[in-house]
C-alpha cells in the first residue's frame, strides 16, 4: 500500500508545489496554517480538484498524470474523504448514509466488516436516525464510517475535528486512534493543531505557503528546533513510542523505549502493550549531575544535540536519549549558566508524561 503525490498549480497570488509519499499504512499529517494549501492537496487526491501539473499514484494505480493526460474521475478513485463539515446526506437515515459508498464499491466490505465499523465507531444506536438529529461528534463518526465502508484505498481526513468543541474532540480522538491501529490503510490527516498531530500521526508533512517546509517522522519533526518558526507555535516536545514492561507493586507502570524507562501511574493495558508517550518541552528540567533527593520519578541520562539560536529569553534544547529525541524548553540564562552546548551530557528530569492509550475504553473486537 502506497500513495505518491506530486502537484504543481498556480493560483492568483499563491503557488502550490509539493511532492511526497505515503509509503505504508499509517497516518501522515498534512500540517500547516490555514491557506497553506492543505485542502487543495486533499481535493487533488480525491479528484474534486484538477491541478495544472501533477502525478498521483494510489497503490500502483495512476489516478492523475497531467503529462500522460490521465485523470481518473473522483467517483472512480476510491478515496475515503472525511470532510470537515461531515456532509451527511440530509434525506437519508444514518444507515443509508453509511451504506452509500458501500453500495457503490467495486469490492464490498462484508457484513462482518460493516458490523466491525459500526461497533468501532459506536454507531449502533444511531442507525435509524436522520443526520439533523445528531450531535457534531456523532456526525463526525458517521462521516468516518461512511468513508471507511466505501472500501477506500486511502483515507483523507480534512480537519475532521476542527468543527468540534474540545469535549467532542476528545470524544472522537480515541476513535481515530483505533482506526489508525486497526485499519491497514494509508491515512492523510489535514490539521493545524499540533497536539492532534502528535497524538495521531506517524509522519508529518509541514506545509508553508504551498511548499513543503519539512517532512519526516512525527518523532523527529516534533522535536525539531526549527518547528516553532515553521509552525508558529512552541515545540510540542517529544513523541515516544514505548512498550509496557512492568506493573510494579508500588502502583507504577514502567514504560520502556530506546533510551530509557519512564514510570507513570498504573495503566490498565497488559505488559507488552505498545503506546505513545508525549513529553512537553516545558515539562523537562535539565541537570548536569544526577539529581538526588528529588520527588521526580523520571530522570533520563541524555546528551545535548543542539540549542535553538533565537534571541529569546528561552532556549529549546534538543536532547538525544538513546535513539529517542527529546526537547526541553528552559530559560536562556539557565542554558548559559550550565554551559550547555552540543555534546554536553545532562540528566533530563521529566516532570510529567502524557500517555496516549489508544481506545482502551472501546469495546474489544
Amino acid at each position: 500500500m502506497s500513495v505518491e503525490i506530486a502537484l504543481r498549480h498556480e493560483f492568483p497570488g499563491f503557488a502550490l508545489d509539493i511532492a511526497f509519499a505515503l509509503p505504508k499504512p499509517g497516518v501522515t499529517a498534512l500540517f500547516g496554517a490555514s491557506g497553506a494549501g492543505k485542502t487543495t492537496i486533499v481535493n487533488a487526491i480525491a479528484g474534486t480538484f484538477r491541478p495544472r501539473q501533477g502525478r498521483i499514484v494510489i497503490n500502483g494505480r495512476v489516478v492523475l498524470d497531467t503529462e500522460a493526460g490521465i485523470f481518473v474521475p473522483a467517483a472512480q478513485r476510491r478515496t475515503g474523504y472525511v470532510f470537515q463539515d461531515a456532509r451527511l446526506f440530509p434525506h437519508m437515515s444514518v444507515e443509508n448514509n453509511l451504506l452509500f459508498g458501500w453500495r457503490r464499491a467495486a469490492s464490498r466490505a462484508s457484513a462482518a466488516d460493516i458490523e466491525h465499523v459500526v461497533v468501532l465507531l459506536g454507531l449502533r444506536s444511531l442507525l435509524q436516525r436522520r443526520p439533523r438529529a445528531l450531535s457534531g461528534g456523532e456526525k463526525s463518526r458517521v462521516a468516518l464510517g461512511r468513508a471507511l465502508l466505501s472500501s477506500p484505498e486511502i483515507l483523507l481526513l480534512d480537519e475532521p475535528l476542527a468543527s468540534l468543541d474540545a469535549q467532542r474532540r476528545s470524544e472522537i480522538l480515541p476513535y481515530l486512534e483505533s482506526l489508525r491501529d486497526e485499519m491497514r490503510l494509508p491515512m492523510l490527516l489535514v490539521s493545524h493543531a499540533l497536539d492532534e498531530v502528535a497524538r495521531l500521526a506517524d509522519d508529518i508533512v509541514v506545509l508553508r505557503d504551498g511548499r513543503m517546509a519539512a517532512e519526516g517522522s512525527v518523532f523527529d519533526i516534533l522535536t525539531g528546533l526549527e518547528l516553532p518558526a515553521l509552525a508558529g507555535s512552541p515545540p510540542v516536545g517529544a513523541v515516544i513510542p514505548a512498550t509496557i514492561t512492568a506493573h510494579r507493586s508500588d502502583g507504577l507502570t514502567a514504560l520502556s523505549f530506546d533510551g530509557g524507562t519512564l514510570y507513570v501511574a498504573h495503566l490498565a493495558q497488559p505488559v507488552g502493550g505498545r503506546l505513545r508517550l508525549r513529553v512537553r518541552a516545558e515539562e523537562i528540567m535539565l541537570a548536569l549531575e544526577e539529581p538526588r533527593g528529588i520527588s521526580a520519578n523520571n530522570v533520563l541520562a541524555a546528551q545535548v544535540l543542539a540549542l535553538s539560536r533565537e534571541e529569546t529569553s528561552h532556549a529549546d534544547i534538543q536532547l538525544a536519549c538513546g535513539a529517542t529525541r527529546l526537547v526541553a524548553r528552559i530559560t536562556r540564562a539557565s542554558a548559559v549558566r550550565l554551559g550547555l552546548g552540543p555534546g554536553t551530557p545532562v540528566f533530563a528530569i521529566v516532570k510529567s508524561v502524557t500517555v496516549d492509550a489508544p481506545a482502551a475504553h472501546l469495546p474489544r473486537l
Partner: protein
Amino acid sequence: MDAFLTPPESEALLLSLRISFVAVFGALPLAFLAALLLARTRFPGKTLVDGLIHVPLVLPPVAIGFLLLMAFGTRGPLGGFLLHNLGIRFVFSWTGAALASAIITFPFQVRAIRLSLEAIDGGLAQAAQTLGAGWWDRLFNVTLPLALPGIAAGVITAFAASLGEFGAIITFVSNIPGETRTLPLAIYTALQAPGGEAEAMRLSLLSILLALIFMTLAEFAQRRARSRA
C-alpha cells in the same frame, strides 16, 4: 359530481384539469433541466437564457397566444411541419391549450426548482462523488430528492396558474366547448350570454374552491420541505 355541476360545467372543469396536468408535467423535465442549467453552470449567454425563460411572466398572454398562432398555425412554419410530417395539430385543439399553458407557467416551475437547487449544499454532491457516485447517480440519488420540495412547490404553483390561463388559450386555440373551453373561458362565455351572471358566479365559486385546494397543497408541501431541511 353531476349532482352539483351541469354537464357543461363538469366538462369545463375536467378539461381545465386535464390541460393543466399535461401542461405542467409535460414541461416539468424541461423545467428541471433549465433550473439545473441556471443553478449549476456558467455559460456565455446565461443571462439571455434566463431572460427568455422569464419572458412569459411579463408578456401579455394574448401576445403569447398570437405568437403561438403564428408559429403553430397550420400555415405557420412549425405548425405546417408538424401537421404534414407527424399529423400533429395544435391549433383549435386541447393540446394547443396545454402548450400555451406550459409556456406561460414555465417560469414558475423553473424559479421554484432553481431556488431549491441553489439551496442544496454543493459539498453533498462532492461527497457523493468521492463515495463513487457518477453524474446520473448523483442527480437521481442526491440532487433530485433534495430538490423534491422545490419541484413540488413549482408544480403546484404552475398548476394553479395554468388553471387560470385565459388570454393565450383563447387567442391560440379559440373557445371550443369540450375541446378548449376551460373554466375561465366558460366564465367568459357565460357572461356573453344574456342572464348568464348566475352561471358565471357558479363557475367562479368553483374556481375559488380549486384555488383554495391548491393553496392548501402548496402550504402542506412547503411545511414538509421545511421539516426535512
